[in-house]
């Protein structure tokens, strides 16, 4: 058991949040953690008595999605850590989500129950079958109301298809299939079928010694069910069309920015490795996050990104230290707002950044208990780069690199964001009048 001390508060390693995701309506928000648990939050209904509570999210359901496992054939421990959660569009009263750890994807059904049947004829209330000889009369069970109960049940388990670690799952816009991506392969699944998947990308070289590139993330196009993209550790993005061939080893588009020779160093490749790729809601743009920047690409322009935003350029002179302490391998994610006009991504010291694509303004905000009391307004933060440090600025050298914001989520159409800071989840929203 690993204990971490942060601000004199101790927390378990298992409590570290490893993914955050809103459902397609924004009514629910799910988090996964390193302990294999999924916590689902539900938005409070608007109430006249407490108008200030509008939009608050409360715990709706908590369940253990994955357990630690041991692969006896490979003598290998499989962590229970939830790598990704993806919601399926709601089609009936129940909610469905996919959660994955390094090896296994599971489909969970989350449903409510407020009635239970009573008065069975052939079995006792506790389920034991009654002796037929004692049954003398016919009884029909009746449904009686009971306290609301939220149940999470595993409906499908998709296993044994990945040799490497799964880094992404993405539900297709046909809502019938989804893909799971590991370091070297992408598999396509039907949501109903667990014993068969189709390999659609395989970059594993015949000779593993020749391996110089891995897949870091992948996602389906939001409305073209035949199109998906995947990003690589060499900083490129490949767009594939599943209509072209069953195995999409040949991409249809290849997005890559030529390297700036003036910025070249031994760390160039590491910092250009893409940690996340996301289609815009419109499907026109792609956003990628590498170590120092976030880039917006037009699907119609492969040669260079449309926009490049510096997330924490002041770290460029610290790359050696960040390499030594392994922070340089941190996988920051990025998200779009509902209108695709603002993008958000995380940084260190519990800071996260927002970039307005229209006004080109950017802001650094902090997710911390001290600075964000309930209903308090977030103050922009500033990192001081060289020269004199102003009163409200923080120096680069005093940034805390153990407090990193890797996972964030944006409500599908409102200005509500969820920010995971180690073991804490912060939900911020536009000021309510």
């Amino acid at each position, binding site marked *: 058991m690993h204990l971490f001390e942060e601000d004199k508060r101790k927390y378990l390693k298992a409590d570290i949040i490893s993914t955050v995701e809103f459902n397609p309506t924004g009514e629910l928000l799910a988090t996964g953690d390193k302990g294999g648990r999924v916590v689902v939050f539900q938005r409070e209904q608007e109430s006249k008595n407490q108008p200030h509570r509008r939009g608050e999210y409360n715990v709706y359901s908590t369940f253990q999605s994955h357990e630690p496992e041991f692969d006896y054939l490979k003598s290998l421990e499989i962590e229970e850590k939830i790598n990704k959660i993806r919601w399926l569009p709601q089609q009936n009263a129940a909610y469905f989500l996919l959660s994955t750890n390094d090896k296994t994807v599971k489909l969970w059904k989350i449903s409510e129950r407020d009635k239970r049947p009573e008065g069975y004829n052939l079995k006792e209330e506790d389920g034991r079958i009654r002796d037929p000889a004692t049954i003398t009369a016919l009884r029909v069970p009746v449904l009686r109301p009971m306290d609301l109960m939220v149940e999470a049940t595993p409906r499908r388990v998709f296993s044994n298809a990945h040799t490497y670690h799964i880094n992404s799952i993405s539900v297709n816009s046909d809502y019938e299939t989804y893909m799971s991506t590991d370091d070297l392969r992408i598999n396509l699944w039907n949501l109903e079928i667990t014993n068969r998947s189709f390999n659609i990308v395989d970059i594993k070289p015949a*000779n593993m010694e020749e391996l110089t590139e891995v897949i870091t993330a992948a996602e389906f196009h939001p409305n073209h069910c035949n199109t998906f993209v995947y990003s690589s*550790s060499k900083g490129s993005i490949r767009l594939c069309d599943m209509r072209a061939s069953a195995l999409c080893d040949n991409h249809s588009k290849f997005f890559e920015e030529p390297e700036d020779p003036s910025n070249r160093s031994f760390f160039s490749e*590491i910092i250009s490795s893409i940690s996340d790729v996301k289609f815009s809601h419109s499907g026109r743009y792609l956003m990628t996050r590498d170590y120092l920047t976030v880039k917006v690409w037009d699907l119609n322009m492969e040669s260079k990104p449309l926009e490049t935003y510096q997330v924490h*350029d002041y770290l460029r002179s610290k790359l*050696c230290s960040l390499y030594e302490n392994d*922070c340089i391998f941190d996988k920051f994610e990025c998200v779009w707002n509902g209108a695709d006009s603002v993008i958000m991504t995380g940084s260190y010291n519990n800071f996260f950044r927002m970039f307005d694509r229209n006004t080109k303004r950017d802001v650094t905000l902090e997710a911390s208990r001290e600075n964000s009391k309930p209903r308090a307004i977030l103050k922009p933060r500033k990192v001081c780069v060289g020269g004199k440090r102003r009163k409200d600025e923080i120096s680069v*050298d005093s940034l805390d690199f153990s407090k990193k914001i890797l996972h964030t989520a944006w409500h599908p159409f409102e200005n509500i964001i969820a920010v995971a800071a180690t073991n804490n989840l912060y939900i911020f929203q536009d000021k309510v009048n």
Partner: protein
Amino acid sequence: MTGSAAQQDRTSMFPKGTKRKCSSDGGGGGGDAVAEEATAAGVKTTASYSLQRQCLLDMSLIKLQLCHMLVEPNLCRSVLIANTVRQIQEEMTRDGSWQIMTEAFNASQGLSDRLVASEILCRPSPAREQGEEDPKPFPAIGGCQLEEEVVVVAAEEETLCTVAAEADSAYVSGGVDPHWEAGDRPEGGSEDGDADDEDEDCCLGEGEVEQRSAEGTKTVDQVYGTFEIKSPAPSPDPALEELFSDVDASYYDLDTMLTGMQGTPKVGPYDLLENLSSHGPSSIAPSSTCRTDLNELDHIMEIIVGS
């Protein structure tokens, strides 16, 4: 604010690197001054640059070794580190310092020195240290083990510390540095130099092996030793490591390191590790067949598990 940062980097890095005059951003009248300065500081600069590069190489090798201790390491991280090692090695082979490094092993102190240096490299530069009250701005999260080790050595080797402390950490930390440009190659015709490099390296490697077996210093073994251990599971036990230290399985090992138990054939760009094998290139053939078998076995296992 980005502008000022870049400016600062550039000024702090001017006295470095004899090749700085080639810099594309140098432009205008600044070029001559830089060239003069560079000539003056020439010898010292080259030394500190290669020292820093060496530190980076050592750090990367240690990281790879730590990866290797895990049964299933983070593949992305391992690949990125291995690419960095390869990049450094290519550059060192090009400017001949690869040979110097192997000679340094002869002096039997090379490694511990360089561990010290890597610690210095990642400390804030003296100027920054004065200005800030916090001397350790980068808590070693992932690499605490590494740092502990390093600090111990540092205490023993104080003389070297003072010399190396003059090195500016900004130099290797990803700033502007034409020294590392691909276009900066001294001799042409190295475009398809992979095969040549390999050959050359093999020779060096053999030499190094001789040195190693001659001196048998423990420090060297501690860092490179595990590359030669063929073990299906992590074996942190030093006694075990010694037991296997003569077994040549370096290809297989790197492989394991990169894939986590996935057996796969042949040597590739990782000649560096190849050099450290005790038997030289002759061992390629047997180990690759062995790996093919393992691959098949793996496949069969997958089928069994699948069904």
